[in-house]
C-alpha cells in the first residue's frame, strides 16, 4: 500500500529557477509503517526534498519545476501536492503529515506552557477542549515517555532539557495521528545518550501507530538501525537508493562508499592509535584539583544563594606529543576545563601548571565554530598576524613566509592571504584556525569540538591533518568532543567527564574497550554504529543531576580504583 509516491521531483530557488535547481529529479515510494532515510551532506538537497512533501519549501522561496508528489489521504483519495491549493495544504500539514525539526527550542513558543501548546494541537486537530484536551495532552506526554507527565504540563519550554523538548515536539505532532512523520535532523542538537533515547522512541511510536517516517540526517550510522529504505543524495540527485541492508552492505555508488568510509565508525577501542608513548616524558600541562564555580544569585539584593559547580575536582596531565580526549555531554564541564586551562575563565580552586615551552604562549586553541572564531572584517593575513603581533613580533617578509608555509601545510594556497573568511568553506576556515593556532609554535593545542561542525568527509580530512601535524610538530592535543567515534580515531588517552567530574581516565584502548563506570558504559552503548544496527535500544530516561549546589557545598572526596595499566575509575557512591 503506497502512501507517498514522488516522481521525478525538481525544485528550484531564486529569480532564475532554471539556474538554481536544488533537487534534480528525485523519485521514491513510501509505504505505511515504513521508514525512509534521506542521507547527504549539507547542500545535497535532502532537506528541500523533504520540505517539498508538505510544501513548506514554498516559504523558503522554492518552486516546483517538474514532477509529482502523490499523497494518499485519509479516506483513500489521492492528492498531488505539487498542484494543491493553500487550503488543501493547510489540511494536510499537521493532519496527514507531521514534522519535527532540529532545534526544539525554536519550534516551541517560549511564553506558553508545554501543556497549553499540546492542548492547542489537540484543539486544532481533534476539536478537543477543556478537561478532554488536558487529559489528551497528559496521555500524549506519557506516550513519549516523559516521567511525571501531569506535572510537566505546567512547565515552560526553557525549564525542560533539550531531549525533553524534542519529546514534547513529538507529542504535539502525534496529536493529529499523522500518517507520515518527517523528521529533519531531529537529534543533531542533542547529546548522544539523549539521541539514542529519541531514536528508540521514534521507532517504538512508528510501530505502535503504523506511521510512515522520512528521516533526514547527515549521519548514516544513526539511521542504520531505524530505516527500511535509504536514499543517498548528493548535489540534488539521489545517487543510490534501496533497502538499507543492501545499500549499507553492498554500496554501488562511489559517493555512498565514500560516505560510509568517511563516517568515523566506532569500534569499541579496536582501532585506537598505537603511536603514543607517554612513559618517557614529563607532563607539559598538569591540572590538580581544578574547580570552576559560577555564583547563583537570587532575591531582592542579589545575594549569593549557591553556585553552579561546572568543574569540580578535576586532575589530569598531558605529556608532549599525546592526545588526551575529554568526552562527555553538554554541561559536563569539559569545555569549562579547557577554558580554565587557557585562562579564559577563572579557576575557583586548584592548580594548573604549564611548563614554559617553545614560545611564550605554549597553549593555543581551536574553537568549534569556524564561522564565529574568525573576525569577518579581517583578511587572512591580518588574522594570521594577530598572534605574532600579540607576541611582539614585527609583520615583515619573514613572518609572511611563515604564514605561507603554514597555509600550505594545512592545505591552503598562498593567495588565501588576501581573502576574507566568508570566501572560504567551513572546512577551509577550520584549517585557517589551525594554521593561526600554530603561528606561535605552541606545544599544546586545545581542540574544543574542533571537527564537530564539519561535514563527515571534511571532518575525516581535518582529523588526518591534525594527526599529521601532531607527529610533525610534536604537539600535545587536548581534544574535547562528544563524538566517541572521532575520539577513537585521534586519542591516545581518554578522560570521561560527567557532571563536572572525571569519572574514568586512561588509555583509549582500555577505556573504550572495557568501560568500567556506569556512565561510560551508557555513553558507549548510545553510540550509533552501522555495525550494530540490528541491536535493539531500550529506553533509558536517566537525567543528569543538577549542578546547582547550595552555598558551602563540597563534593564528597573521590575514591579511585585501578582497572588495568593506566586506567583509573572513580568508585561510584551509592545514591
Amino acid at each position: 500500500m503506497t502512501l507517498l509516491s514522488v516522481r521525478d521531483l525538481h525544485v528550484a530557488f531564486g529569480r532564475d529557477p532554471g539556474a538554481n535547481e536544488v533537487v534534480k529529479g528525485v523519485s521514491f515510494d513510501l509505504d505505511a509503517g515504513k521508514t525512509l532515510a534521506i542521507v547527504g551532506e549539507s547542500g545535497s538537497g535532502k532537506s528541500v526534498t523533504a520540505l517539498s512533501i508538505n510544501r513548506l519549501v514554498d516559504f523558503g522561496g522554492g518552486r516546483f519545476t517538474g514532477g509529482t508528489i502523490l499523497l494518499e489521504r485519509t479516506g483513500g483519495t489521492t492528492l498531488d501536492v505539487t498542484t494543491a491549493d493553500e487550503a488543501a495544504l493547510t489540511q494536510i500539514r499537521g493532519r496527514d503529515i507531521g514534522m519535527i525539526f532540529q532545534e526544539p527550542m525554536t519550534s516551541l513558543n517560549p511564553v506558553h506552557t508545554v501543556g497549553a501548546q499540546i492542548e492547542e494541537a489537540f484543539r486544532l486537530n481533534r476539536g478537543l477542549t477543556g478537561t478532554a484536551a488536558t487529559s489528551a495532552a497528559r496521555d500524549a506526554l506519557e506516550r513519549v515517555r516523559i516521567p511525571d507527565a501531569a506535572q510537566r504540563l505546567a512547565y515552560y519550554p526553557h525549564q525542560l532539557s533539550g531531549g525533553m523538548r524534542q519529546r514534547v515536539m513529538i507529542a504535539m505532532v502525534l496529536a493529529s495521528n499523522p500518517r507520515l512523520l518527517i523528521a529533519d535532523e531531529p537529534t543533531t542538537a542533542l547529546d548522544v545518550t539523549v539521541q539514542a533515547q529519541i531514536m528508540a522512541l521514534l521507532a517504538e511510536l512508528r510501530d505502535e501507530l503504523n506511521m510512515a517516517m522520512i528521516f533526514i540526517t547527515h549521519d548514516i550510522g544513526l539511521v542504520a538501525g531505524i530505516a527500511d529504505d535509504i536514499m543517498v543524495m548528493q548535489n540534488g540527485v539521489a545517487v543510490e537508493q534501496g533497502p538499507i541492508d543492501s545499500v549499507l552492505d553492498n554500496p554501488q555508488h562511489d559517493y555512498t562508499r565514500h560516505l560510509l568510509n568517511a563516517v568515523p565508525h566506532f569500534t569499541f577501542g579496536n582501532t585506537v592509535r598505537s603511536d603514543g608513548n607517554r612513559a618517557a616524558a614529563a607532563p607539559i600541562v598538569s591540572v590538580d584539583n581544578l574547580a570552576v564555580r559560577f555564583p547563583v544569585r537570587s532575591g531582592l539584593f542579589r545575594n549569593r544563594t549557591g553556585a553552579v559547580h561546572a568543574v569540580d575536582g578535576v586532575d589530569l596531565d598531558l605529556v608532549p606529543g599525546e592526545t588526551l580526549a575529554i568526552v562527555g555531554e553538554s554541561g559536563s564541564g569539559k569545555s569549562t576545563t579547557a577554558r580554565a586551562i587557557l585562562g579564559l575563565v577563572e579557576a575557583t580552586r586548584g592548580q594548573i601548571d604549564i611548563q614554559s615551552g617553545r614560545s611564550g604562549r605554549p597553549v593555543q586553541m581551536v574553537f568549534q565554530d569556524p564561522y564565529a572564531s574568525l573576525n569577518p572584517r579581517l583578511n587572512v593575513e591580518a588574522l594570521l598576524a594577530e598572534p605574532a603581533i600579540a607576541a611582539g613580533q614585527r609583520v615583515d617578509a619573514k613572518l609572511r613566509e611563515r604564514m605561507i608555509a603554514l597555509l600550505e601545510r594545512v592545505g591552503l594556497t598562498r593567495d588565501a592571504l588576501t581573502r576574507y573568511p566568508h570566501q572560504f568553506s567551513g572546512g577551509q576556515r577550520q584549517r585557517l584556525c589551525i594554521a593561526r593556532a600554530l603561528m606561535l609554535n605552541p606545544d599544546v593545542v586545545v581542540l574544543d569540538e574542533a571537527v564537530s561542525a564539519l561535514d563527515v568527509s571534511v571532518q575525516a580530512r581535518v582529523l588526518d591533518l591534525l594527526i599529521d601535524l601532531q607527529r610533525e610538530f610534536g604537539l600535545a592535543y587536548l581534544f574535547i568532543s562528544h563524538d566517541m567515534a572521532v575520539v577513537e580515531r585521534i586519542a591516545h588517552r581518554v578522560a570521561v567527564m560527567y557532571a563536572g567530574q572525571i569519572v574514568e581516565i586512561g588509555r583509549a584502548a582500555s577505556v573504550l574497550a572495557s568501560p568500567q563506570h556506569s556512565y561510560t558504559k551508557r555513553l558507549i552503548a548510545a553510540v550509533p554504529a552501522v555495525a550494530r544496527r540490528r541491536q535493539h535500544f531500550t529506553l533509558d530516561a536517566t537525567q543528569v543531576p543538577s549542578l546547582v549546589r547550595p552555598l558551602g557545598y563540597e563534593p564528597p572526596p573521590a575514591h579511585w580504583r585501578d582497572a588495568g595499566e593506566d586506567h583509573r575509575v572513580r568508585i561510584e557512591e551509592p545514591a
Partner: protein
Amino acid sequence: MDMLRAIARHPSGRIGAIIIALYIVAAILGAIGVTPHDPIQQFRIDRMKGPSLTYLMGTDLLGRDTFSRLMLGIGQSLTIAFSSVALATLAGTIIGLFAAWWGHLWDGVLMRIMDVLLAFPAILLAMLIVAIAGKGTLTSVAAIAIVYTPIFARVVRGPALSLKQRDFVDAARTFGSSQSFILTRHLLLNLVAPLTVQVTLALAWALLTEAGLSFLGLGTQPPAPSLGVMLSESKNLMQQAPWLMIFPGLAIMFGILGFNLFGDALRDILDPKTQGRAA
C-alpha cells in the same frame, strides 16, 4: 568603491547622495565667496523683492540676496551638524565600548547617565545646555553633541556586548592580544557598519536641532546667516514676503530628507541579511 556603486544602484540612496552633494557644493561655494551677490551687503533699493532672475529667491527686509544667504546658511548649518555629530560619535563610541567591555559598575554608571540624557527631548536639553553655557556657535556644537551622544553609546554598547562574547575575541585572548588591540580590531572594526548608518541619520537630526536653536536665537547669531536664523528673521514678514520663509524651510526639509534617504540606503546595503552572506 563597491560602496559608492551600491549607493548609486539604490534608488533612494541615489537621491539622498545627490541632495547631500548639492548641499556640500553650495556650502563650499558660499564659504569661498562664490555667491551671486554679497550675502551681507544690503541693496537698499531692492528691499523685499520677490524671486526674479537677478535675485533667484528674492531679497529680505534689508535688501540682502536670499539665495546667497542660503548658501552661507547651509554651510553654517552643515558645519555645526558635522562637527557636533563627529564629537557625539567619538564620545558615544568610547562610552559604549567601555561600558560593554568593563561591564558591571562601569556599565551601570555610564549607561544610567546616558539614560538621564535621553529622558529629555533633544531640543529642550540643547536649550538647557545653551542657557547654562551661553549662546553662540561653539556652545551649540557642544550642546548638540551632548544631546546625541547617548544614541551612539547605545548603538555601540549593544553589538559590542555580543561581539565581546564571540569566539574570535576569546581566540584573541588566547594569543595574548592586548586590550586595545581587541577593542579596535575586533570590536570597533565590526561596529563600523552600524555606526556609519547612525552617523548619517544623526546628521539629519543635528541639522534640525541646529535650526531650532538658531530659530530661538540660541545658536548662530545674526548677521551671520544660518537656516534657523533666516527662518526666525522671516517670521514677521510671512504675509508680505513668504519667499523668505519658504526657501530656508525647503532647504531644511530637503537637507533632512537627503540624509535620511542616504542613511536608509546605507542601512539596506550594510545589512548582512540583504547582502546574502553570513554575518
